[in-house]
């Protein structure tokens, strides 16, 4: 079987199908670490953590923020089922900043273990979103 030259990337959240596009390369925030996917990848199923996802079409890179979910990788197809996914250009920077400040406040005075864990995740989410958003602005 010939190695496919493109990957069909699908990103689906509970609310909608966000992306369905032919791409050349993808990088995903897997729960065991970031992983890159090129066409012809071995079938793989893995969970995702909070992080940054990018995909490349030609020379153009697109960034997204992802929070939790899982991904199914096939040689010619990648399906991401994310709890939350946002394109870099859709991220509301003011909201992400506010969320980060809230999380910082809660981290400063943790009341219980559960709260601490939740605040930590919220913190990570907001940091990732800010990071992804900044990429959208710097890209030419």
């Amino acid at each position, binding site marked *: 079987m010939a190695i496919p030259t493109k990957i069909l990337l*699908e990103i*689906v*959240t*509970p*609310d*909608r*199908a966000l992306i369905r596009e032919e791409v050349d390369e993808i990088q995903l925030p*897997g*729960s*065991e670490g970031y992983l890159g996917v090129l066409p012809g990848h*071995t*079938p*793989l*199923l*893995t*969970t995702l953590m909070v992080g940054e996802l990018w995909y490349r079409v030609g020379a153009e890179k697109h960034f997204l923020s992802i929070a939790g*979910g*899982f991904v*199914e990788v096939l040689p010619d197809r990648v*399906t991401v*089922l994310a*709890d939350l996914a946002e394109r870099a250009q859709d991220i509301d920077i003011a909201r992400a900043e506010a969320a980060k400040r809230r999380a910082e406040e809660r981290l400063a005075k943790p009341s219980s273990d559960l709260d601490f864990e939740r605040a930590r995740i919220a913190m990570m989410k907001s940091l990732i979103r800010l990071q992804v958003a900044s990429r959208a602005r710097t890209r030419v």
Partner: protein
Amino acid sequence: MPSLIDLRRRIRAVKSTQQITKAMKMIAASRLRRAQDRVIASRPYAQRMLQVLHGLAPRVDPEAHPLLQRGSADGRPLVIIVTADRGLCGSFNSNIIKAAGQFIATDGRGPVTLGLVGRKGREFFRRRGFDVLIEQTGIFQRLSFAHAQEIANAAIEAFIDGRASSVHVIFNEFKSVMTQRLVVDQLLPIPKLEGDAVAGADYLYEPGPEAIFADLLPRYVQAQVYRALLESNASFFAAQMTAMDAATRNSSEMLDSLTLYMNKVRQAAITREIIEVVSGASAT
């Protein structure tokens, strides 16, 4: 016989009611569109999830996970009832409440715990002294996956620590604008997944298949709850639209008959006046 002025007033009242029902119908129709789109938009996620689960099922011991096992014997069944927050939607809420009552009486086998979503259901069951575990009102205006997660997680927790022996959800499924179907779904324990040995054959699993499976099952329950909420929301607007359409039609019928009656009364009054004038003239 009512006077002309009374009739005119009555007609005006009916007309303004009709304006309101007409406006409500329009609003329901536009919201229905949006709700319908969301139901459709949520389908790919649920379908994909199911595919992956089916691929995984033969590779793990399905009995190993607590969400797949029979619930504890001392727990009570948990019934999640999805109603709407508002009325003026025909028999939408009363159908659900009736079906829930029947379910509790026949299938419940003894006392049950309730999960109430929507204000109408809460108002009904609260007053009747049921044991309520989950309560969510006013979520339909800004419905998001987070709401479904909250409800699903509460149900999962109750199931795992033995308070709930099973979890069912009762809601209106959106078939079309004219028909909504009442559905009683078993949420937990998760009905047996048929394994599809081919689909998951030579995958790499990272972390192991069991870990992914354990991660997926709660998500699956969340997606199921989310679907129930979205379907119920779309059904609500469909029911409201139909009800308001019927109300608008009824009021225009009423207007017709009232106008006819008013004209008769007017004519009778004119005839009487003429007779009076004529008889007055002939008397002199």
